[in-house]
């Protein structure tokens, strides 16, 4: 699970949510690609600009939820921590959605 401390509390809630949503969308793309996604796939899948992709990939790596696994080409995969986070998020999303609340 991504610790709360990773996102500054001073940021507005909407900004935090959108950042979390982007993180999750990127991680979903990696998972969909059999846990081996090239940056281009993540860029299109999560609908990001190149600059933001680079920024968020670095952030996700520093959070320890994804890792760079490619030798010649850059390929990203979810870590164990990332897989657990995504499973938790899926449960939470499903729970909130049952009540009609969006995350």
């Amino acid at each position: 699970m991504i610790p709360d401390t990773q996102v500054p509390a001073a940021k507005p809630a909407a900004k935090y949510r959108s950042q979390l949503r982007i993180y999750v969308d990127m991680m979903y793309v990696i998972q969909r690609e059999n846990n081996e996604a090239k940056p281009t796939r993540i860029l299109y899948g999560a609908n990001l600009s190149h600059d933001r992709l680079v920024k968020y990939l670095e952030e996700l790596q520093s959070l320890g939820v994804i890792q760079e696994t490619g030798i010649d080409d850059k390929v990203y995969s979810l870590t164990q921590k990332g897989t657990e986070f995504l499973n938790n998020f899926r449960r939470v999303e499903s729970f909130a959605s049952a009540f009609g609340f969006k995350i």
Partner: protein
Amino acid sequence: MVGPSWFFGFGSMMEFISFVIAIAVAYQALKAYKLSKEKTLLYLNLSFVLIGAGLLIDGLSSLIVLLARAHREFLYLFGVGYTINFFAQLVAYGLLVYAYVHQTRNLTAATEVLAAVPVMFFERNAVTELILIFLLVYIAIQTGINYSIHKNTNSMLVFGAFASLSVAHVFFLIFTVAPLFYPFAQITQLFGFLLLLAMLLRVNQPA
């Protein structure tokens, strides 16, 4: 709330079961809030904590009266338990209505007034049961709309739960003139919470 004497222990037992389910829903909502920082989920958490606390207090007070039935001085606990449970539910469902209004982008004057209802009528005991029904029907409609959009089992279970709770409170209202309706009200209320439990179990089943 008294009800027929033959139903005495069962009512408390059902309220304890409902209390456990309400707290489980509150816990799940808290977990969801911690992860997402979405305020509506905090309202959902507070709402179910209040519902659970109200049910526990009402169940406990009924049980104390039942166990000490030889001592008539304990009878006032019925009123205390019911009143606390009633106001806890009033605030809880008011919070849920607020959560639905809060997440709706196009606020209308009507929905703003609707959210303020529990505050305005907080002390009017004569109409409070009707207000609870009013709030629950509003929540049931919102969850029904959500089900009509998503068409999945979890949203259907939540819609079914709030529809059952609405019917239960209609029975509680009728009970004031026809005591036979008290068991129906309790059973329908328990059924509503069991639907919420089914949703929780589905959400938490391994992927």
